[in-house]
């Protein structure tokens, strides 16, 4: 039996992480990466509220009232973790010390723009730390379902929703494909075992470069 789509995306996303990297995991699918994380890589997970070295959500028994991630969940720590204030936490992000941010998306444009923080008139909860993560992580990887709840493509020619950041995306990982943003163009680099090229093209509403060779599967 195949994995649920979200798990498939998270498992594939985990492979992006190189040993020793500093990584921030947004809410949703990004957080699911923890489930597949190979801790031998000694990854340092950053949480915006002032933690480096968080491990994973913990049980009621070990939950500490003073130890939550940026989403509010109770967490435990790896050895060598540290705490700091919000100011240093974002210095780390903006100053270039965050190797990868994994974030979700509402819309993705053909040039790698990201919109994921507001739907005017409907959903306006504020930006939180997302704009700085999107704009300043050394590598921004979007983990998202290929289509929205209505089945419409999330990857579109240009975003209709207010942007989180312009031309910020390096790679997109969905349940169907891995797509890179190269020179302001989208390039298909991997195909899911369960997917076909036709399906990917159909569900992507933006120009997609398709290399003239067999693509790796995941």
């Amino acid at each position, binding site marked *: 039996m195949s994995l649920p789509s979200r798990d498939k995306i998270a498992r594939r996303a985990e492979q992006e992480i190189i040993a020793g990297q500093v990584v921030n995991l947004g809410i949703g699918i990004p957080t699911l990466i923890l489930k597949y994380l190979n801790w031998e890589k000694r990854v340092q997970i950053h*949480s*915006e*509220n*002032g*933690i480096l070295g968080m491990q*994973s*959500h*913990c*049980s*009621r028994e070990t*939950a*500490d*009232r*003073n*130890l*939550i*991630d*940026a989403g*509010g*969940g*109770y967490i435990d720590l790896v050895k060598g973790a540290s*705490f*700091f*204030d*919000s*100011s240093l*936490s*974002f210095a780390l*992000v*903006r100053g270039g010390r965050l190797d990868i941010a994994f974030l979700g998306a509402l819309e993705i444009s053909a040039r790698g723009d990201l919109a994921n923080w507001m739907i005017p008139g409907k959903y*306006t*909860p*504020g*930006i*939180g*730390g*997302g*704009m*700085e993560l999107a*704009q*300043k992580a050394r590598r921004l990887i979007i983990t998202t379902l290929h289509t929205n709840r209505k089945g419409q493509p999330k990857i579109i020619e240009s975003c209709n929703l*207010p*942007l*989180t*950041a*312009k031309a910020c995306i390096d790679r997109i990982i969905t349940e169907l494909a891995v797509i890179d943003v190269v020179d302001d163009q989208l390039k298909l680099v991997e195909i899911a075992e369960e997917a076909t090229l036709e399906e990917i093209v159909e569900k992507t509403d933006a120009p997609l470069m398709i290399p003239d060779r067999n693509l790796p599967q995941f």
Partner: protein
Amino acid sequence: MNKVTNIIDAISIIKDGQTIMVGGFGVPGTPFMLIEALLQQGTRHLTLIKNEANEPHLGVSKLIEAGRVDRLITSHLGLNTTVLELMHNKKIAVEFNPQGILVERIRCGGAGLIGFISDIGIDTVLSQNKQAITLNGQKGVVESALRADVAMIHAAVGDDLGNLVYEKSARNFNPAMATAADIVIAEVESIVNTGSLDPDTIHTPSAFVDRVVEIGKLQDEYGILEHHVFA
């Protein structure tokens, strides 16, 4: 200079119409007892500066729900549908900042600076109404410093001089806010003898703190939120 006082006296300096910074990111670091005392005091027309608005019926949300807050300068209200609804119904004015820009504006005020220049949000709606500037070929927008009349913060440990130590993720906005208000009130879980804190481990030096309140046994609000236990 013994700064230890009772909570009613400490809060009594807060007046109608003032701007108040409140520490905390979720439950950790939120000064629930000071917030409760401010609610009891009945002070109105406040401008609050806080990362989020806690969750419905908790922390600063109680002040907002009671109609005491005219304006909220914040980063994210995703966990507080009650306040979001009050915002949509124009019962409260809300100004959103990227989280790191919010804390940086507070730090900037605390550091006695006028503003700073950043490229965060430069290609987004958030750059509207901000002064554009180019420095050494880099394009940015000007962000203004934030200060408050009073900061209400929470620390794990304090001494009678006002030195503070925070615990784990309860540090968050508290150290920056401790620098950025005319009067800083710190609630602490326990007060230790002055001189017993290792000077290398003090997070907020005494000079920044005006009043210290010991909160004693922690009320339920400080505990684990069951709906945030995910494993």
